[in-house]
């Protein structure tokens, strides 16, 4: 089973490398990418400066493998890559990278959208929103 976790933020260079590796896959017609970025939300009047992510890693990796198989079964995809940060990710940095490729655009886009929804709803990952004054609040996905 593939590990989806990366320590700290996902760098734009990592994303490029991932895109570049698909140049030899000439059966691909469309790539769909979703990037989650940490938002400097105001909670009360304190801005979120970073999110500290933790996960039940073994369970998340097993669950992701199940989701991966289901989404591959539903859409004719060429590739699928999922990466999620653990630890501290500053506001403005990237914490989630979902990348699907297919011969035709619709399948790549639909699969990417579905993966993002499922990752947020089904993977045991938690974000702790950190404030400047070292206080924090646990994030809740709505």
């Amino acid at each position, binding site marked *: 089973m593939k590990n989806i976790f990366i320590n700290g933020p996902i760098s734009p260079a990592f994303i490029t490398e991932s895109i570049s590796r698909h140049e030899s896959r000439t059966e691909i017609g469309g790539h769909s990418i979703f990037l989650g970025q940490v938002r400097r939300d105001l909670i009360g009047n304190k801005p979120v400066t970073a999110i500290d992510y933790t996960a039940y890693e073994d369970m998340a990796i097993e669950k992701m493998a199940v989701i991966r198989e289901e989404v591959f079964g539903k859409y004719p995809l060429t590739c699928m890559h999922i990466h999620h940060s653990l630890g501290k990710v500053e506001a403005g940095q990237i914490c989630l990278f979902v990348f699907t490729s297919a011969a035709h655009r619709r399948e790549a886009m639909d699969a990417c959208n579905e993966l993002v929804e499922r990752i947020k709803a089904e993977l*045991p990952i*938690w974000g702790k929103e950190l404030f400047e004054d070292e206080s924090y609040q646990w994030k809740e996905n709505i």
Partner: protein
Amino acid sequence: MDIISFGKIAEIAGGSFSIDNAPDTDSLKKIIEQKFPALKGVKYLLAVDKKMIRGNINLDKNSVVALMPPFSGG
């Protein structure tokens, strides 16, 4: 029986701990909420051996039970 906890729940229950064996998840919840009364007011989910569970299921002494707050990845 090994219990692990995450996120906000780990702050209440202190990460991982052991309890006497419970026959099923409903009894387990009672034991845990007695041990950590603050859990009663908080929403948490259970996974047994890395699978989410709904309703009441039987446990055996080797089950690993995870107490988890609602997910907030992404």
